[in-house]
């Protein structure tokens, strides 16, 4: 599903040039659950942003379902993104002014789903995430675990083929963390590909495979069972 070859990304600030990704290559097959690990600042988030079509690489190739997307312009990327990719962030990134229902509904609005249909889909997803009873609450009124469940619900509401999660449990205690990991595992079992950045070996065990990074390069891949 994803094949990156010699991917490079630099950040230039005033005088310093940071190499965030240094000729990075790997492949992720459809249906895989991959964890990305590595010390802080090694380029994990940068990688995820590029995989999520939020950012473009400076060099290298990025095949998404066999299509070269490294040189896609902003509009094409956005189009591909909203139909195929869901995001889960460490800090949830829910919109404070919108209710749980409205937050989850957003991606459907942007992909142009009709209102009546949206209601059905959102309720289905909220049910699945066991957060239906909170549908009219605002994010501030929820616990961290509940908020992340809403975020996951929002990530999957469009039925994406790929979910990218950047430290999804980073702001949660272990029991809430395990709950979210279970949700991701369930989704993966239903066929969704998942790439997750994490600092936790415990969480990494939920995945099939761990990619370890150091200074923008893969240093090791180990298969978990």
């Amino acid at each position, binding site marked *: 599903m994803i094949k990156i070859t010699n991917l490079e990304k630099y950040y230039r600030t005033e005088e310093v040039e940071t190499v965030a990704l240094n000729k990075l290559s790997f492949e992720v097959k459809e249906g895989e659950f991959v964890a990305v690990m590595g010390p802080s600042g090694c380029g994990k*988030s940068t990688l995820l*942003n590029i995989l*999520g079509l*939020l*950012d473009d690489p400076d060099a290298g190739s990025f095949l998404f379902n066999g299509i070269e997307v490294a040189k896609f312009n902003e*509009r094409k990327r*956005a189009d591909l*993104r*909203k139909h195929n990719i869901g*995001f889960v*962030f*460490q*800090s949830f*990134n*829910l*919109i*404070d*002014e919108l209710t749980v229902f409205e937050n989850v509904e*957003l*991606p459907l609005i*942007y*992909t142009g789903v009709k209102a009546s249909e949206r209601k059905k889909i959102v309720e289905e997803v909220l049910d699945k995430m066991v957060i239906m009873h909170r549908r009219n609450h605002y994010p*501030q009124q929820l616990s961290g675990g509940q908020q992340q469940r809403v975020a996951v619900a*929002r990530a999957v509401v469009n039925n994406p083929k790929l979910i990218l999660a950047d430290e999804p449990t980073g702001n949660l205690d272990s029991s809430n963390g395990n709950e979210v990991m279970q949700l991701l595992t369930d989704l993966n079992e239903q066929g969704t590909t998942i790439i997750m950045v994490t600092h936790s070996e415990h969480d990494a065990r939920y995945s099939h495979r761990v990619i370890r990074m150091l200074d923008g390069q893969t240093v090791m891949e180990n298969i978990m069972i």
Partner: protein
Amino acid sequence: MLLNYLKLAWRNLLKYRFFTALNITGLSIGVACFLLITLFVTDELSFDRFHDHAGNIYRVDADIVFGGSSLALAVASDPMGEALRKDYPEVQGYTRIYTSNGSKLIKKGNVFINEDDVAHVDSTFFDIFTYPAISGDTRKALTEPNTVVLTESAARKYFGNTDVLGKMLETNDAGGTLYKVTAVIQDMPRNAHFYFDFLFSMKNVQYDFGNYLSHNFSTYLLLRPGTTRKAFEKHFPDYINKYVFPQAAQFMQLKSIDEFEKSGNRISYQLTPLTDIHLRSDRMAEIRVNSNIQYVYIFSAVAIFTLLIACVNFMNLSTARSANRAKEVGIRKVLGSERKTLIRQFLTESGLLAVISLVIAIVLTWVALPFFNSLAGKSFRLTDLVRPDFLLFLVLLPVFIGLMAGLYPAFYLSSFNPITVLKGKLNAGARRSGLRSTLVVFQFATSIILIVGTIVVYRQLNFIQNKKIGFNKDQVLVINGTGALDAQYRAFRNEVEKLPGVLGSTMSGYLPVMPGARSDQTFSKESVMDPRNGFNMQCWRIDENYIPTLGMEMKAGRNFSRAFGTDSSGIIINESTAALLGYADPVGKILYSADGVNSEPGPHTIIGVVKDFHFASLKQKIGPLSFVLGNANWATSFKVKAANVKDILNKVQKIWTGMAPQLPFSYQFLDESFSNMYRAEQRAGKIALVFSVLAILIACLGLFGLASFMAEQRTKEIGVRKVLGASVQDIVGMLSKDFLLLVVISSVVAVPLAWYGMHRWLEDFAYRSALPAWIFVAAAIAALLIALITISFQAIKAALANPVSSLRSE
């Protein structure tokens, strides 16, 4: 302590540079507008107040309704002042000004110069009015005939210095008259409803003195202190019975005043306070075109609203940014700062901002002053701002603005509860504020009203310029003072007519524009005048080329013609007169002139009816008017081809100077003179335009600030939405929606107010343009577009930002 406040305030202003710049720009433009308009308004209000007795001087005005025509005159009859002084002890004195002779040619060396600012005045002029003398005794200066009082400028212009007592000045009156200079006064202030450079003795006026029925003198009474206007006006009926009625009775065989009034006729008098004339008097025979109190009201409102809009910007931006400042407030409070201290801190900030803005505003005012002067027709200098009363005002202004703009934010910001603030829960709430929305609505409603006002004023002016005025004012070159050519007149006219491009000419000083001569006369339908058959009518002396040259049209009958020897006693009337007379076919009927037309009293046969044309301002209905053949050669009009106007003018001037090098060459274009009748409106239109644009600009600065602030506040949200697939349009729409809703609400508020205001303004005109709905729609759409452009700049910037960077900051 204050120094500490100031230091902190300064740092804060620097820290939030962008908002400080927006605030200062808005405030300083607002204050500059306010200063300029204040200059204008105080000047308008200062008119005629420099006289020692200003509060006790009144002008006598006459209202005459006679034979269906009504006249509101700013003049009284020649003997009226003296009669009132003799009969009523409340009258301490009176004086009269006579300007009906128009301008004079005054000889300097070998050439004559045309002087417009001339008048004949009574010797009592200086008893009533206060004009400091430079030399001579003004009290006695004009008691003799052939005397003249000059202003300093006039003395310098004609003699090179002011030491001119006893010197002689030659004018063209009565074929050449010498006047002796008996006093020199300081130049007359321009903030007066009249000012002259030459005051000639009244004794040189050639006039049918003693007539109580003929009104030609601007007459001013000085009433004794304590006399009220109302009380004095009660004397007028007695005066009319004693003086006016006996003459009228003799004139038209009346037995009683009742008989006169029963036929719908009326003569009445009223007093207009001297200090009201400039702003509240718009009568026939005013010495100069006056202004209008409405403009004072309108401009004062514009000034105040412009300033308020700028203050609102400050309030809105301060409270909107409160989220950023909240943390500072929270920490300060936790550290023990009292609310009082915080309020002082915030007020110091707004005060400092106001002072900086004032300084910039004064610079802006200085830069804009020449432009404003030409716009408003004034000659202000920056030093006018440092008059003592103004100085106090300048000191109070920043205090007022500081409080105005700072009080609410200060109380609002200082009221934050430190616990909620430090938890960071405030953001969402601070973003939406009912008050802020209300203030934005206020700003935009004001802007929309200003836009509507400007459109309506311009439409009315256009309407006036393009209305079917009944004559063709275009490409008519009027040469003034042709009467002075005497024997050479015929030759001059022939020469000019021979120029290629000159299509025709007519000799008449009676023109349907200002300045043009007027002659109001009494006519009757029967040979013996009585109150039922008499009426007043303009009677203009013209030649047979007048009607075709000025493009007027005949409704019935015919124009004067050389082919008819009897035309010298013929008369052409306008449609209004025809309607007044009530004849089915007026042609062939006879009108009797009471005073004599061309000194020929007696019957005049109506030979034609000319279609109505406007000969006064469109504020007045078209009244009765007639033409007779006669000699009024002090102006001659030439119809010329559009293409070579400039060239023709040069050639005409060459012919003139060739024939009469000693006489001044003076001309006007009829269309320009026509638009001069609406100078006050034109000025008002331009001023309204400039200040509306500025007000809208200031409102937009505020909106720009708010929009950029909102975008900044919602950076994260925008990032999230983009990650979820929102397009740039989605984001721009989302950010603009709220503001645009406010602008829509503003339109709803503004439209009825604007409609009412403009309806009132238009009522002033007898002939007015319509007030169609599209004006209001256009103004609302304009406001919406302007707001949209302002907001979308920020919105697009926010929408285009890469979401990765905004989400990183978490």
